[in-house]
């Protein structure tokens, strides 16, 4: 019944796609994204891949280039198994924080899905990568692909020169410390160019060749018998080594006495990759929320303009609903809070508060309620927050009611969990604070730092675990990880758990007592 003019307005018909419809749809999406939503994105590069290639991409942590390691093989076997059993579908897309921004589209997707995915990844995620302060400060989108290319070739070269086993054992140890291989507070140095790195490597090799052990045998300038002198020496020593140090990989790379230059370079590679992914882990809710909000808005606009058919829109809505589905805590499907659901709901909530606030919203969000400029508010939030601060700032009481959130406290030596707060007037603040904290990686991951080492003495490396809320480390994996630290350090390593409030030592463990290597 449609008039001819309206029918030709459609960007595509049916479910098959080709490069022409992809390009046409991309342009239409771009118009809405840039002109109406005011997004600011890296140039896009869309790559079509098969399901097998998607599995490959999965197992190498989503990077198009990655060095070889058995753990990626393990992950591949795992993902492949789930996929073949039909227990898990593959993601429709995968997007890489690089400049140009690379988005993988699966060939099996229907055209409607390709449109959805383009809006989601090539504009939503892309905008977030380019504008969020964490990504801007801590990652270097234009250098990462070159760097990965260098890393892959470098490690292949090392394997050729030093043997697969030697490289593997260094990588194993480095991977074990990946979580402790990031700078949380200090800004990491920019990725230097290949040339500079080459120079540094040469210098290190030169130093190593010309190192003279004689210097060490010079008598110390003064006798240090005075206890305060010893104390001062320790402080001096710590200062010289820049201790305490939170980035274990960095410390080992720079300070370990037994590593060869190529081994240091491998530690550096692992550390750089860990650092590159660190912002993504801190912005899961926001990143997915932003992308989901963007695709939802754009697809609806396309439909309003008559550019996609009702059938395509239904398909889009169905998969959108699946993505933002949040089962309740007692549902067997409950996997935890769904970052897509929470993020998307919060973005919509911000728009609602800006445009159509209730008196409650005016109380809670006096700065934005009723101002009407939801677009600027969202863009500002996406640029200047991470999950923790975003939730702390924007989680509204009405959303807490909608999700029926409640707070449960769990003490290890109690046989009961206690419901501390629910979605009522007294509970909003507590729930909001607790939820925000649960997204703070700094607070949830064990805080382990290098405290002290006497390089001229027994070279015993001392780590300190600052225990928060009495949460200790899982013992087996702690001991195994400690062995890896010892492997990289070359001398005994010990870790002490110190309660961050009372300063009391809760446990101590040293590799000297652990059997076997």
């Amino acid at each position, binding site marked *: 019944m449609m008039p001819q003019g309206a029918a030709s307005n459609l960007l595509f018909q049916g479910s098959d796609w080709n490069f022409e419809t992809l390009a046409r749809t*991309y342009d239409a999406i771009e118009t809405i994204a840039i002109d109406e939503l005011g997004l600011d994105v890296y140039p896009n*590069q*869309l*790559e079509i*891949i098969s399901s097998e*290639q998607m599995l*490959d991409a999965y197992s190498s942590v989503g990077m198009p280039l990655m060095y070889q*390691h*058995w753990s990626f093989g*393990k*992950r*591949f076997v*795992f993902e*492949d*198994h789930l996929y073949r059993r039909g227990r898990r579908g593959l993601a429709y897309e995968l997007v890489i924080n690089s400049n140009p921004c690379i988005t*993988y589209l699966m060939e099996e997707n229907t055209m409607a899905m390709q449109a959805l995915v383009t809006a989601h990844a*090539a504009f939503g995620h892309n905008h977030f990568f380019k504008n969020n302060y964490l990504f801007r400060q801590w990652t270097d989108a234009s250098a990462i692909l070159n760097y990965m290319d260098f890393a892959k070739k470098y490690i292949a070269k090392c394997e050729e020169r030093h043997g697969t086993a030697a490289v*593997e054992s260094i990588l*194993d140890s480095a*991977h*074990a410390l*990946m*979580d*402790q291989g990031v700078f949380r507070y200090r800004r990491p140095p920019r990725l230097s160019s290949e040339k500079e790195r080459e120079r540094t490597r040469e210098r290190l090799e030169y130093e190593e060749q010309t190192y003279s052990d004689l210097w060490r045998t010079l008598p110390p300038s003064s006798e240090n018998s005075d206890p305060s002198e010893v104390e001062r020496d320790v402080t001096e020593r710590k200062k010289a080594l820049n201790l305490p140090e939170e980035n274990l990989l960095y410390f080992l790379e720079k300070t370990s006495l037994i590593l060869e230059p190529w081994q240091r370079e491998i530690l550096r590679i692992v550390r750089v990759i860990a650092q590159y992914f660190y912002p993504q882990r801190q912005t899961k809710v926001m990143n997915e929320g932003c992308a989901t909000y963007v695709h939802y808005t754009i697809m609806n606009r396309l439909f309003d303009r008559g550019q996609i058919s009702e059938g395509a829109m239904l398909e889009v809505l169905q998969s959108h609903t699946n993505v933002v589905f949040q089962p*309740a*805590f007692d549902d067997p499907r*409950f996997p*935890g*809070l769904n970052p897509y659901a929470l993020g998307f709901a919060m973005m919509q909530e911000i728009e609602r508060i800006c445009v159509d606030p209730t008196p409650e919203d005016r109380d809670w969000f006096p700065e934005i309620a009723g101002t009407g400029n939801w677009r600027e508010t969202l863009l500002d939030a996406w640029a200047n927050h991470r999950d923790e601060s975003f939730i702390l700032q924007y989680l509204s009481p009405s959303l807490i009611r909608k*999700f*029926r*959130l*409640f707070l*449960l406290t*769990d*003490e290890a030596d109690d*046989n009961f*969990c*206690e*419901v*501390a*707060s629910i*979605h009522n007037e*007294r*509970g909003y603040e507590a729930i909001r604070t607790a939820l925000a904290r*649960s997204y703070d990686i700094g607070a*949830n991951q064990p805080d*382990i730092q290098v405290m002290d080492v006497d390089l001229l003495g027994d070279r015993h490396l001392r780590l300190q*675990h600052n225990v*928060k*809320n*009495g*949460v*200790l*480390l*899982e013992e*087996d*994996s*702690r001991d195994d*990880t400690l062995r890896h630290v010892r492997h990289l350090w070359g001398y005994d390593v010990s870790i002490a758990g110190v309660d961050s409030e009372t300063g009391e030592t809760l446990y101590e463990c040293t590799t000297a007592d652990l059997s076997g290597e």
Partner: protein
Amino acid sequence: MPNFIDRRLNPKDKSLGNRQRFLKRAREELKRVIKERVKSGKIADVDAEHNVSMPARGVSEPSFQPDRHSGEKQYVLPGNREFAPGDRLPKKGGGGGARGAGAGTGKSEDDFQFVLSREEVLDLFFEDLELPDMVKLNLKESVAFKRRRAGFTASGSPTNINVGRTMRNSFGRRIALRRPSRREVEELAREIAKLEAAPGAQTKNKQRLEEMRQTLDRLERRRRRIAYVDPVDIRFNRFEPQPLPNASAVMFCLMDVSASMGEREKDLAKRFFVLLHLFLKRRYERIDIVFIRHTDEAGEVDENTFFYSKQSGGTIVSTALEEMLRVIRERYPAREWNIYAAQASDGENISGDSERCASLLQDELMRLCQYYAYVEIIDERETEIFGTTDNGTSLWRAYRTVDDEWPNFQMTRIAKPADIYPVFRKLFGKQQTVQLHK
């Protein structure tokens, strides 16, 4: 307009290298699993893909992880229905209540099954059998096919065009459609030329010349319309992959199951049978396996009973040979079947019976069998004593006489898996002649 790149045709198996590294890492554990499978599974099942569990040892990736059972934690969960502040929920059996946000991700990674390909399984199986590389390669290779002519087809590659057939079709079609031949046309042209050349042609034969010219024109047009060789004429030679001409084989597994055969002995025997089966499977389309066990009496049994059920009694080896003879007569005529036999025993036999065994083999069985392998499973400590001498049990001595006379009889003593292969060395070396035998 963005930059589109079609990566679908990029090389696949980007993570093959990673997979190999992973398997190498997990080798010991996987080897143990496969060994266990060989022990408990069916002989014919070894040669296939296998599902194995993720090995726990060697492939863990430790890191500093918070202990789930310590300290004070807080969870924010969705979907509250009936709780009020201060409610206390029991931790165990309380549903998902005590599960933290994000729990259950990644943890299950260590507990799942994955598929080892047939090649990978065989690699692991071969590992301590110490097979020479060439043999390994040969066993892993799949059934060989030979391309054989099989009639003609209307489509195919230009190199396979059958000219004779094509031309025959073309000829038939030309006749049927009355395509003017070249001779016909040339004759007419010559006649026209002659008439034209004749003096006064213009006036006298004008009428006739005109007619002839029209006919020539018509003929030539017809020749152009009806091709000399049309695509519908073309025929190609058709080839069909045909498995190499080897018929079926039957493999007899004979084993002493009296009390003196323990777990270790049976395990070794089983590997011996598996290996023979693999050898045969490379060469024959279809293989039947017959299991005959014996104590002081013999019987044909299924595989499970053969390896696992116990039977008490003395030991009379010849009963098994008689049973085998009976089965051959009944079901496997030597004209149609390649008969292979493998016998495993600890060498014990009732006195006087060994000679009977030897004569049974000499007179009847060896004429029927392609190959007969006998392994005597001995204690590792005994290897040094018996290793090289001809001394030994009465059965061993009796079989020596058979061994001397029949080239297709093999016997050896084995104490560990690595000893098994030499039994087959001759069988393998002879492959070419055996293949042509039938």
